[in-house]
């Protein structure tokens, strides 16, 4: 059972020097006691004086995660007026996330966007004039989280969760129909069938949890789209970026293809490149659809790379793309520097008002400059990276783990020989928890399924 103690990463998710994981609530001290160890292993942070700093390690069981400084802040003299723990760790996206996950594993839940501030307000810490501002933050963040959460889920993850939910609701509907109308619907020996289904769902959830551990549950990267007219050199650029000497981040089997994406790491920054080239290189008739698709992708992208064929004059395609990249984060690559150039950097800069870099995808020149440009954009904060995704991932992982717990409970109930009505309680909580991941609100799903699938009544 989750307590109402919340945790979050309160610094941005860039590779900064230090990141802070903050915990607030009744269980904050209990949790830190379970995961913190001083160098000598003799200190309990729940017993130290308030507002003190402690050096030590964060552990998950026997495994050391990071060397940290921990601030112990006892309520009510804290931001939220609750007991607060702040863990200053070594930065780095992976470690920070791991610490947050550990905190969640030992009893906290991931804070909703703006929740620390909300608590501060509700507990009377912030004055009235700030109320509206808090509300706006909550709203903006929530809308962003909602829209990003679903769009960031990989296609097959969404599919699997939906499948599990469908099978759960069908089974519960059967049990409930039979309980509601025992004289019409015979439940028979349903436990065995259900056990098989629960086991297979558990296997899938385990796999999802594993992929969450590998950070592969969500697309965690900068969504990047390469645009350019046919033969501008988009595919060549992809090939260069994906070349042997690059750190290619492969995906879990079978997932890359269905999203037509390649994941590339540049100076430790992950780019998810949507391969619009594949769409472009088809017959002329489909060209229109290709443009439409590219436009869609460009709308959702964090970063656009516009590849210009320097050996040919601008044509309609180019002007259309220039229209598309207005007001967007975009790097323009003037390709084919190995050929006779008909377009100059200055011309392009004038037309696009973007950074322009001269490259030859064929010979590999200018690529280094391009990579440095990406790095600078990112570290200067000009390339907004979606830190909500990391949080969402932790939250989703926690939800999957919770759903798994519920299904294990069902399994135990079946093995204990309990009657069917006990199963539906935990089945429904698994159903609801998984619904939270895919952003579906619980409504009258169960009642509707019962009536749809089973003939009831007098």
């Amino acid at each position, binding site marked *: 059972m989750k307590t109402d103690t919340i945790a979050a990463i309160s610094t941005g998710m860039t590779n900064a020097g230090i990141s802070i994981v903050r915990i607030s609530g009744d269980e904050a001290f209990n949790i830190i006691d379970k995961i913190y160890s001083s160098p000598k292993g003799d200190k309990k942070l729940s017993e130290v004086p308030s507002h003190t700093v402690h050096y030590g390690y964060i552990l998950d069981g026997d495994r050391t995660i990071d060397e940290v400084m921990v601030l112990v802040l006892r309520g009510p003299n804290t931001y939220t007026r609750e007991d607060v723990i702040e863990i200053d760790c070594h930065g780095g996206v992976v470690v920070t996330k791991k610490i947050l996950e550990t905190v969640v594993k030992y009893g906290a839940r991931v804070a909703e966007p703006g929740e620390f501030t909300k608590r501060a307000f509700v507990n009377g810490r912030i004055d009235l004039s700030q109320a509206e501002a*808090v509300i706006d933050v909550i709203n903006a963040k929530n809308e962003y989280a909602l829209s990003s959460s679903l769009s960031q889920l990989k296609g097959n993850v969404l599919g699997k969760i939906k499948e599990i939910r469908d099978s759960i609701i069908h089974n519960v509907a059967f049990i409930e129909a039979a309980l509601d109308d025992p004289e019409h619907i015979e439940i028979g020996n349903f436990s065995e069938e259900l056990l098989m289904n629960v086991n297979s769902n558990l296997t899938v959830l385990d796999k999802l949890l594993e992929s969450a551990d590998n950070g592969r549950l969500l697309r965690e990267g900068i969504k990047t789209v390469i645009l350019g007219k046919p033969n501008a050199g988009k595919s060549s650029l992809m090939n260069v970026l994906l070349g042997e000497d690059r750190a290619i981040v492969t995906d879990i089997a079978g997932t890359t293809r269905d999203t037509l994406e390649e994941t590339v790491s540049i100076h430790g920054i992950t780019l998810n490149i949507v391969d619009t080239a594949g769409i472009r290189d088809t017959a002329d008739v489909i060209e229109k659809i290709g443009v439409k698709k590219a436009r869609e992708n460009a709308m959702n992208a964090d970063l656009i790379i516009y590849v210009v064929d320097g050996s040919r004059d601008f044509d309609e395609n180019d002007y259309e793309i220039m229209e598309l990249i207005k007001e967007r984060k975009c790097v323009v690559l003037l390709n084919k520097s190995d050929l006779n150039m008909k377009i100059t950097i200055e011309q392009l800069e004038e037309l696009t008002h973007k950074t322009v870099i001269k490259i030859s995808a064929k010979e590999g020149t200018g690529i280094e400059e391009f990579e440095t440009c990406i790095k600078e954009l990112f570290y200067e904060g000009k390339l907004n990276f979606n830190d909500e995704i990391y949080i969402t991932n932790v939250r989703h992982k926690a939800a999957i783990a919770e759903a798994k717990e519920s299904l294990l409970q069902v399994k135990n109930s079946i093995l204990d020989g309990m009657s069917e009505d006990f199963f539906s309680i935990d089945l429904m909580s698994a159903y609801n928890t998984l619904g939270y991941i895919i952003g579906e609100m619980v409504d009258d799903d169960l009642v509707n399924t019962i009536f749809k699938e089973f003939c009831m009544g007098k």
Partner: protein
Amino acid sequence: MSYTYENYDVVVVGAGHAGCEAALASARMSLDTLMFTVSVDSIALMPCNPNVGGSSKGHLVREIDALGGEMGKNIDKTFIQSKMLNKSKGPAVHSLRAQADKQDYSRTMRNVIESTEHLTVKQAEVCEILVEDGKVKGVKTYSGAIYPCKAVVLATGTYLNARCIYGDVSNYTGPNGLSAANHLTDSLKSIGIEMQRFKTGTPARIDKRSIDFSKMEEQKGDEEIVPFSFTNTPEELERPQVSCWLTYTNETTHQIIRDNLDRSPLYSGNIEGTGPRYCPSIEDKVVRFADKDRHQVFIEPEGNYTNEMYIGGMSSSLPEDVQYKMYRSVPGLENAKIVRNAYAIEYDCIKPNQLKSTLEFKKIEGLFSGGQFNGSSGYEEAAAQGLIAGINAGLKVLGKTPIILDRSESYIGVLIDDLVTKENKEPYRMMTSRSEYRLLLRQDNADLRLSKIGHQVGLISDERYEGVVEKERLIQEEIARLEQTTIGASKEVQEMLESNGSTPLKTGTNLAELIRRPELSYESIASIDKDRKELARDVIQQVNINIKYEGYIKRQLKQVEQFKKLESKLIPEDIDYDDVHSLRLEAKQKLSLVKPHSVGQASRIAGVSPADLSVLLVYLSAHHVKK
């Protein structure tokens, strides 16, 4: 010509299951109560199925009884068969159902009504609700008589603009040919109440002498009777029981129905009302579940002094000639003589989200409503709402705080919360799956859950309430004793375990641990429990359940704790959602429409997101600070 007649505290419009409970509750709270009915002979009429209870509905009846209502007592007096459904399942879904002698049920209830102090019955059609400055002032009958009063409970059932239909025959009457109430709807609309049209149906009644029972399976009642009312003991209720009978439709039946679908008013569009999915007509079943080659048909007696048999499972609005063919295709009904045709009935009811959780109209102070008028279906659902509406109308007159039962303490709470919070597009029926905390809301512990409230409002006597308090004490005491009584692996213990097919002990344990084993129970370990004192059957039952299912119960209690947090955050009635700037438009509209009394209720409104709730919570705290 209108003229003013006597003053009353509370006027109840309707004398069905909701009306009876409402009127009795109000009168028993010593308030002068007047109950109107279109026919005094139809008090507590059961125009459809001849039974009370069943899955989740049985729970409602037990809760009505625990609160001091009448339905449980009345069915205990008049049942002719009693059965506990789902007995092989967990205690949360055990459901009591009794076949009623319909006439006896109605007559017995009438007798109770007529012998209750402060309660007057009047046969007349109420056609106007008098409202001044948003407050109810009285009612006016068709004859022009005005009855001033302080509160009104509307419990008009299926009578408002009722129309009964089969084939191309349609009569503007209420159930069983009783006269409909054709004037009240207009008055309700004129005071700003939004109406909708629902539909339901009932099967034919067939003469017992024309049925060949040898082709059917007999369905007997239970030998061991469980009373509905906590005031009765099984021994008091022993009596000869009658049987029901089971037969099935077949391909011929279905073919007859398919061949005549074009003559069904449901499919020809002659019926506009929305019908319930859980109680489909036989033509609905045949169309929607085309792959099923047969459907069950239950033949149930309507009473001890009538030949009429209710044909459960085959409600219909097909024309009379098709009904004959259809029923006669069922084994055992080949020579059936139909006493009353099956029919569908359409009626006006309200959109229940106009009500507060107290069942008072948000817009009109002192106007309450309950039953099918609120868009529900079923005698039990009606009675439950009638009781709450009656109690709250009474409390209103007395100037006291109304009662609101929440989802964690009763099925009645779930029922009312669903009605007033959700969009109901069909007549609402109770189901155990609608209750999130059903392990706690069992039919066996309704008295422990609700007697306190029944006592507070004055419907449960001091004596009865003290009995419940004592029962609770004995339960806790016995559970504690069992948990503290340790036992070793003595020869006697091992023998007891072996004889019950349970694994022998390796180390010592306590008695509660033994009871937790699936194959053991409080009763089966009696031989090794030397200090046991004699306890009542219902106490033992609670001890057993609480120990055996402790893990599950504890988890549900935790959930309830979470639930209560949001439920206890109240929203002031005068809140203006347009003031809460950051709420999304949809949320604003939904919240303004439903006007939830707590943040918990707000969270159950379709279209209100978690983000909206956060916004609302912050706004409420700000509001609080301001004050």
